[in-house]
């Protein structure tokens, strides 16, 4: 394998891995919010929320 091949493998796995972890984390977070009925980032704040 050439140097460029190692660079592609290095960047591909690291950046791809971080992206994949972020996506999986978002899915786990959504599933957990659905399970406990917690508000999401997109939900507007409740009017009766304490200031």
């Amino acid at each position: 394998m050439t140097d460029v091949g190692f660079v592609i493998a290095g960047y591909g796995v690291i950046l791809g891995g971080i992206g994949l972890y972020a996506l999986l984390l978002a899915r786990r977070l959504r599933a957990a919010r659905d399970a406990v009925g917690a508000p999401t980032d997109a939900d507007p704040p409740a009017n009766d929320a304490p200031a």
Partner: protein
Amino acid sequence: MKTRILGWAALVAVVAAAVNGLFVVPADLNQGDAQRIMYVHVASAWLAYASFGVTALAGIGYLVRRDLRLDAIALAGAEVGVMFTAFTIWGGMMWGKPVWGVFWQWEDPRLTTTALLLALYIGYLLLRRLTDDPHRRAARAAVVGLIAAVDIPIVHFSVLWWRGLHQGPTIGDPSKLLHPSAPLLFVLALLAMVGAFTLTWAYLLIRRYQLARLEWQREEEARLSRIVAARRAAPPPLVGNVEEPAR
């Protein structure tokens, strides 16, 4: 909403730093294109240290205050740290083969202590699965997180304390802060990648902390429903039918 903005900022920063490291900064005279891997390798290594530092500090905080939110921070640090340690090792291997001629060498103290660091924190995450009691789990994890954190300075200073294949610090040594042993263009590209990865790290840490809080909430709900179900299934107490004991 702020976390979402942080996530987008991190994405833009990582793309910009990667384009800079891959296409803008020239290749190293001796190492060729393989040197470009250093930008992601070193950034991953620093954030692995930072993650486990967060785990250790949050663990101390839990032991002092017994607040489960601190345990959630410790868990977030450990999981994100395991990921960055694995990427540090992967980046090092991808750089080591073209430059050193080998992917790995067990005799090298930096490599071996980093592998040990990864094993310690995978153990930390596995240990957390041994009990359902949140406070018992948090206390055990805090102690193990503190013991494992001893390996962080050993990994960092191993290149100074012992001889091995791994080179010494390029900018991490205080004496090299103003006079780094790499061209300024390379140092700036590295700092840009460290900055971009730090934004990503902060975003992932916050998201993992939020997930840990929700998981704990779900565990509590499940525990309460188990208690309620057990009480309903139990036979009713024999109030009124029990004869008074003879005096």
